[in-house]
């Protein structure tokens, strides 16, 4: 079954045969050693460093790092991160799903569709630093839109809104949240079979019934799954916000970066690990939920 040697396997096992099969499976395992070694060193070790480092102090084990999470600055940044991720996930999921429906109903090999999905890929996975600069060029103090609005006689009283976590950051986050929603949700919409709509129509149901009783229920699990993914994505975003905000640390990722590079206060590095651990816990919760939802999704939309 494993390879071409089925016939030899069927012969009664002799002592030599058994020994050689052990030898062969050992050789087979040798083939995957490089991969596992690599993943262990550059992925599992860092993860364990975070997990154990969070409980390490200068004098051995301690819960001091974890209790440091209750400091007002860290606790509020965690709260900000959760709110920011939640709000942008909901807005991004709603607009992203509308957009992906529009994309799904456009021509399959059309240029518009190709350009649009590619743009979504770029913004969702590549954005980061470039997105922050795009934002500055658009709505910064000297940005194109700001100047246009000024020419039309509208001045924004609060010129710093761009750099505030509950205003500017929400908008700039949408620039990678909506595209990510399109990427994740498009396959689900494409999984809707035309036969289902036709079946609804044959039974006398209109558009409303189709969405209420067929497409809606089928698309709900993937929608929630995508929403959770968007939450995790925004929660762990760093590049864009790091470029935009240089003074304060309104979100958790900035706080982690700050604690990591701080050489002033000793032991901050381990507080960074505690914050990172808190982050992993939140993301792990969300991703577990997402995996559970995904299992329901695959019932109907398995391709």
């Amino acid at each position, binding site marked *: 079954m494993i390879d071409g040697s089925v016939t030899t396997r069927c012969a009664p096992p002799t002592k030599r045969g058994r020994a050689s099969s052990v030898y062969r499976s050992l050789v087979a395992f040798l083939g*995957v050693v490089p991969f596992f070694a690599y993943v262990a060193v550059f992925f599992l070790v860092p993860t364990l*460093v975070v997990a154990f480092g969070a409980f390490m102090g200068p004098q051995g084990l301690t819960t001091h790092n974890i209790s440091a999470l209750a400091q007002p600055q860290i606790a509020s940044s965690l709260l900000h991160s959760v709110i920011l991720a939640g709000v942008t996930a909901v807005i991004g999921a709603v607009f992203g799903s509308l957009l992906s429906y529009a994309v799904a109903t456009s021509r399959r090999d059309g240029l518009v569709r190709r350009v649009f999905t590619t743009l979504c890929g770029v913004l969702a996975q590549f954005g980061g*630093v470039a997105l922050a600069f795009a934002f500055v*060029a658009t709505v910064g103090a000297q940005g194109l839109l700001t100047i246009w609005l000024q020419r039309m006689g509208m001045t924004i009283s609060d010129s710093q809104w761009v750099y505030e976590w509950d205003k500017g950051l929400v908008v700039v986050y949408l620039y990678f949240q909506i595209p990510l929603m399109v990427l994740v949700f498009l396959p689900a919409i494409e999984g809707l079979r035309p036969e289902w709509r036709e079946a609804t129509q044959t039974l006398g149901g209109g*558009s409303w019934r189709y969405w209420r009783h067929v497409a809606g229920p089928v698309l709900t699990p993937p929608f929630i799954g995508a929403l959770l993914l968007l939450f995790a994505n925004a929660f762990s975003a760093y590049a864009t916000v790091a470029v935009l905000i240089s003074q304060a640390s309104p979100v958790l990722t900035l706080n982690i970066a700050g604690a990591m590079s701080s050489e002033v206060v000793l032991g901050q590095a381990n507080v960074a690990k505690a914050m990172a651990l808190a*982050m992993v816990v939140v993301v792990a919760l969300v991703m577990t939920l997402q995996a559970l939802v995904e299992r329901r999704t695959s019932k109907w939309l398995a391709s």
Partner: protein
Amino acid sequence: MAGLVSTRDGRGRASLRRRRLRGGAVFRLVTFAIAGLFFGLPLVAMAEFTTRNGRGGRTLETWATLTNFSKMNESYPDLKNGIVVSLGLAAVAVSIMLVLLLPTMTWVRLRLPRLGKTVQFLCLLPLSIPAIVLVVGLVPVYAWVTYFLGESTIWLCFAYVVLILPFAYRALDAGLSAIDVKTLSEAARSLGASWFMVFRAIVVPNMGTAMLSAAFLSVALVLGEFTVANLLSRNNLQVAIFMVGKSNASMSIAAALSSLIFAFGVLFVMSFVGNGRRRPADGRSSKES
């Protein structure tokens, strides 16, 4: 199916269908227009910003510097170094990824199918570990890397392989599923081919598009990477753009726009490559229905 419907109430259904299609077209047009404005405006604003000359006029000076390698080397050496090192990182990370992942995935499919789930889990796990968490844990690992190999930025490639693992895995897995590796390799083995021969003459030639799309996606990801490089105090393209932004906004915006356009180009080309592979699968499913 459509024929079934029309037998009952041919004309009414047909017109309903047409009305729905027209409604769909309007919805599509409006949605695309709004989305185009929302996503297009910042790109236009970037282009506009980089052509200002500071006195209300237009100039292409920034772009002239950006496209002139020796001039950029003079005025923005860090940016030039960042570009060079990021291209190098992309090449090295993609090579390590392919050398590490493709043989392992093939081997697991052929000889150790029980490990398939484990390999998949490990490959997709980096998706749920935020990059910034990985960096926190990578600090001691990179202390050792620096100790053994030196401080060069190129060694970031080890971390980048982990970051591109999920995307590369998916692309390669789709490629391996499309060909029947097991039957092909059994055929080759029964004709006396070695495992190496199976890999070199059966798997690799059949995996061209999958390898290409894995590579393209990885290149785009590596060129856009900021978090790991910045927090490990290395200079790559995105870190350089960030740093230049502190002194010259125009230059950094021009560089950011170019990097976006470059990524767009890479992924756009990839969308054609991916399609070439998907088409036969589409043909098969349409035959089934």
